[in-house]
């Protein structure tokens, strides 16, 4: 085991896979320098031109990444802020995601798109979004969002080894958090499509991912002080979803709160809630609650940004609401909670 910061775990994953496989390359804006946060810092010293700086041309660099993946490489492209991926949606969605299907498997697109986001540091509406729901709506993509250094390394390694286009979502609020990561080329590997129970409990399930996992675990601690045992699930793979893990937990607790930093409206929480209620209606003792950001662009002022990001209190309040639901017979209307 080594103690690594989340951002170091990302670099370690790149380092291992670059060393293991000569077809792996990393490209993006300022990646030889390390980018604004240093995720790729120093890799060019070891891997030379396989660490490739690109012009600020997201649309074309995304297509270049797809084309490289079609031609024998396993490219890892960094999108500096996920907000800029809007420029590259044609190549990601129309080409990267669809080429395997459109050609019935004659072609495959083994690429990884690393993109960081989240509202942190008052960077405003063009540098702060959480956009996972867009990508989880696209057949052909894989979407992962690690919350710990171990998963940051393990999921990135698995993403690079995947034969599909993987969107690997980082949250810059996690970059400096430390955690234990297994040593070795394969020891940290985390399978895509598997959730993990971070805290066991029997009263209510809280499902979350990425940075919001910290708030979810803190909420569970607060609830425990009142004798409420929350089970906290880190979904970490958003497409495909580990529905079995979620249904197993809901089967134990009968209650579900889904917490994410993205806006609640049209967020992934809606899809997860729909899938769970379709399959576990009989086990649900209360309507599923969602916790997400209000339906506004990410604001700039620190006071506004703090109010925008869902917090521990919002998750605790949602959990108490679903626990307070008296019975199925009352047929309460679904609840939606905004920060």
């Amino acid at each position, binding site marked *: 085991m080594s103690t690594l910061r989340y951002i170091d775990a990302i670099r370690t994953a790149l380092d291992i896979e670059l060393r293991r496989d000569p077809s792996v390359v990393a490209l993006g804006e300022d990646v030889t320098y390390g980018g604004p946060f240093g995720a790729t810092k120093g890799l060019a010293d070891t891997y030379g031109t396989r660490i490739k700086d690109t012009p600020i041309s997201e649309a074309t660099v995304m297509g270049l990444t797809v084309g490289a993946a079609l031609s024998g490489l396993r490219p890892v492209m960094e999108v500096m802020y996920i907000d800029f991926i809007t420029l590259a949606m044609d190549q990601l969605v129309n080409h990267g995601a669809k080429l395997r299907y*459109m050609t*019935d498997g004659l*072609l495959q697109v083994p690429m990884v798109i690393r993109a960081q986001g989240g509202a942190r540091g008052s960077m405003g509406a063009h540098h702060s979004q959480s956009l996972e729901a867009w990508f989880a709506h696209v057949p052909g993509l894989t979407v992962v969002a690690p919350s710990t250094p171990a998963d940051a390394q393990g999921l990135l390694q698995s993403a690079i080894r995947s034969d599909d286009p993987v969107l690997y979502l980082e949250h810059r609020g996690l970059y400096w958090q430390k955690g234990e990561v297994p040593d070795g080329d394969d020891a940290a590997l985390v399978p895509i499509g598997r959730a993990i129970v971070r805290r066991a409990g029997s009263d209510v399930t809280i499902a979350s991912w990425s940075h919001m996992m910290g708030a979810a675990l803190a909420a569970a601690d607060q609830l425990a002080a009142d004798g409420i045992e929350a089970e906290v699930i880190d979904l970490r793979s958003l497409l495909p979803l580990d529905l079995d893990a979620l249904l197993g937990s809901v089967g134990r607790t009968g209650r579900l709160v889904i917490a994410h930093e993205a806006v609640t409206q049209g967020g992934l929480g809606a899809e997860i809630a729909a899938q769970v209620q379709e399959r576990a209606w009989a086990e649900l003792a209360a309507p599923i609650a969602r916790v997400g950001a209000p339906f506004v662009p990410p604001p700039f002022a620190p006071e506004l940004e703090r109010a925008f990001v869902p917090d521990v209190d919002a998750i605790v309040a949602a959990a108490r609401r679903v626990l307070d639901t008296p019975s199925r017979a009352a047929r309460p209307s679904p609840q939606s909670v905004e920060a």
Partner: protein
Amino acid sequence: MTSVPDPLGMLERMWLIRAFEERVSELYARNQIAGLLHLGIGQEGVAVGLAWGLEPRDRLFGGHRAHAHALARGADPARLLMEIAGRATGYCGGKGGTMHIAAPETGFVTATGVVAGNIPLALGSAYASTVSGDGALGVVAFGDGAGQTGSFHESLNIAALWGLPLLFVCENNGYAEFSPLSAHTKVERLARHAETYGIPAVTVDGNDAAAVLAAVRDGVDRARAGGGPTFIEALTYRLRGHYEGDPGKYRELSELADWKQKDPIARFVADQGLEAESPAAEARARAIVDAATDAALAAPHASVDQLRTQVTAEAVA
């Protein structure tokens, strides 16, 4: 006249493309093919001149009007027609269709339904060969309508900046969808854009397949010698509408008549002195297309069993 090493082979392939596209048009008119078809009748000289300058390992990416490019590279006419007709035995099992054909084993990688969407793909393919050292050139064929997109300019910039082994082949047929190039840009010769980025560029008569081949060979030689990308603008004309069924009222009939006089096949026959050989070459091509048609129409339709397969690698049955 420019001499070419394999004039009969080029002629036969142009006839094959012509016969294939005419057959596709007939089948579409008889409702035996569904969808949105873009034919390149009249532009065969570019596809064949291009293909005859490449090696099998080179990777060509076509646009939405790409049947000619796939056939020029050696795609099987029967499997291609099956794909266009939505048959299970088509190249893509009927999942792709006319705008998403693929025959990667021939060096025709795939096509795109998004104008200019293929340019970054070819750029990435050329970049990949610089990493892997496989010696393959990236090659992309696109129309004049692509010249006004961001991807076009961004790709020219990166190809020049990185010195990538890439051929840009602009098939300038004078019309972007339903309007003339002059309605899209003040720049008459798109090759000028390449010069801005420091890429050697040439404008050729695209209906002169031998001239296209000569330009391609220059570009291929440059790229293989490490000299970076080349831009070829081939001036041509589509004798059909933008899509099958397009009434084409945006063009003068006299213009169409003028271009029929410049038919690339007749031009090649005359230039290469193939008057004696051409009728038999055409007959062979039409026989191949007849056989492909019989095979395609007898082939099983795309299977609903396959609707959910090949979305991801993990979902492969």
